[in-house]
């Protein structure tokens, strides 16, 4: 390696290192606070004098006023996330199949309209969405959050899955038709198996979108037994002496599933994020 090249590389490394530290500092604080006893919470130490896992025990045993429904709320989060992922995939695969494979007449329009919905920021739709859920009598139910998140995730899912679907050669469908397959059989036996990698990517996207959602969860859900853990975390701050160490421990626990999912499916995620970027 020439000195010149080594110098360039070193500069890039330095920039990378800075960004890495910048990204990790909040996570480091999160972690340190989660292993700090209540008494030391605001000592401002880089590392606690007496690190402890007591906070985690308290969280997992629901041993605090704010954590009275920890497991139920964690379940709510999971249930909402999984339901959103499944419903989004059902809508996305059916729509992309209809647009890309059955080539229905208005498919192109639907596909473009789907993208158009992203021109309006989700926050602007909070009031209309609240009103709509109220009209259907769904306020306070987890279904209101599920339906809302599906509404936000579907257009992206349709658009992305359609991009993937267009890459499958159309001759496969024609060959299957000649082989004797009905559209339903083409969907199940040809389309779904070949779309599986992109479905994993889009499913993960929808899952994490719902898991991380705060605004709509806060708005649409109210009772302690219906809210997701994200909203419950927000409730910690409703008192003056918030138990920060417990909040951080819960935060760490809450962050683990997405991290695990992302790690497990990272191959598909990268493919999913870059697909459609270039025409191939």
């Amino acid at each position, binding site marked *: 390696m020439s000195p010149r090249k080594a110098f360039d590389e070193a500069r890039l490394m330095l920039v990378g290192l800075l960004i890495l530290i910048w990204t990790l500092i909040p996570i480091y604080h999160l972690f340190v606070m989660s292993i700090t006893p209540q008494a030391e919470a605001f000592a401002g130490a880089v590392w606690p004098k007496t690190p402890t896992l007591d906070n985690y025990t308290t969280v997992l045993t629901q041993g605090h006023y704010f954590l009275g429904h920890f497991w139920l709320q964690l379940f709510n989060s999971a249930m909402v996330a999984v339901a959103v992922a499944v419903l989004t995939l059902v809508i996305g695969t059916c729509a992309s199949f209809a647009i890309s494979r059955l080539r229905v007449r208005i498919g192109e329009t639907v596909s473009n309209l789907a993208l158009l919905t992203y021109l309006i920021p989700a926050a602007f739709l909070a009031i209309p969405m609240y009103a709509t859920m109220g009209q259907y009598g769904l306020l306070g139910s987890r279904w209101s959050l599920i339906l809302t998140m599906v509404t936000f995730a579907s257009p992206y899912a349709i658009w992305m899955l359609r991009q993937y679907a267009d890459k499958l050669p159309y001759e496969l469908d*024609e060959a299957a*038709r000649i*082989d*004797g397959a009905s559209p339903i059989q083409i969907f199940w*036996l040809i389309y779904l198996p070949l779309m599986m990698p992109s479905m994993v990517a889009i499913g993960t996207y929808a899952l994490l979108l719902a898991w991380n959602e705060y605004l709509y969860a806060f708005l649409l859900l109210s009772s302690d037994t219906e809210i997701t853990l994200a909203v419950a975390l927000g409730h910690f701050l409703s008192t003056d002496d918030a138990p920060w160490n417990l909040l951080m421990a819960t935060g760490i626990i809450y962050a683990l599933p997405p991290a695990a999912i992302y790690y497990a499916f990272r191959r598909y995620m990268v493919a999913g994020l870059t697909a459609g970027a270039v025409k191939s």
Partner: protein
Amino acid sequence: MASVSVEAVRKRYGALEVIHGIDIQIPDGEFVVLVGPSGCGKSTLLRMIAGLEEISGGVIRIGDKVVNEVPSKDRDIAMVFQNYALYPHMTVRENMGFSLKLRKAERGVIAERVKKASQILGLDPYLERYPKQLSGGQRQRVAMGRAIVRNPQVFLFDEPLSNLDAKLRVQMRTEIKALHQQLKTTSIYVTHDQIEAMTMADRIVVMHDGIVEQIGSPLELYERPNNLFVAGFIGSPAINLIKGTLRRDGGRNWVATEAGIDLPLNGNASGQDGQPVVYGIRPEHLVPADNGGLPVTVSVVEPTGASTFVYADLSGAQICGVFAEHPGVNPGSRMTMMPRLDRVHLFDAGSGQRLAG
């Protein structure tokens, strides 16, 4: 097996008509090749026979049955695609058995038919592999295997060899022909490659701009092309076509070119004195002559081993001669080429149609 009959078939996309009423009768067991330049409508016609495109007018029959409104799966046909269209997530065995599985055939029957087909095609060692683990030639064979397990009435081939390299193409060409001689299933084969058409076909349908220019056996098309298009399309290197005026004087006929060259003709050539014509002579029907031939100036000499191609200038017209023996000329040298008079083709310059005789 069955005959296929195409009667006054038309295809329109909106206001644009791409196939203008085509009639082709294909008897049971025949191997017919549809050939023509890209955009001539040959693939569209094949796809209409397959049921992948709607028929805008006319009738297509397979056997005695009109199939215009019959879905692909009920036409009892099998198709081999240019890009093979193998199902990537299925093994070779599953690919070949897919159609039988959809038709709810018994497992034993599927296994037996797949085995038979794989033996015919030499695919036995690859049955458990996935398409991506196969070479181009093997994929092509799987695509054919998928077609033959069904034992369909008609095979349709849509440029099946154009994704293969030159050597493999020649080999697969022979294999497909041998397969047809073994199975004797009516086959319709689309290609833009006239060599493929000539070597494989029982009969060739030459298409151009959505119409049929000529239907005939390979040798008929070669020896008696109906018009300038067929003459120019069939044969390699392409036929020499020289414009001129037909002259008749007593028993003697010739074609006078604008450059003042007289091209010799048989005594029995038809046409009117003074008629503008195109004089066609294939490169392989020119022979080096000591005198009395066409005086040319050699521009390029291409020895291929088996024969030698000589490209030359005939007073402004480029012509090509193919000689079994190297004529011993170099670029720039002058020679004379004599057309074999019984092999001269004469076309009307206006209509492009062959003049009888």
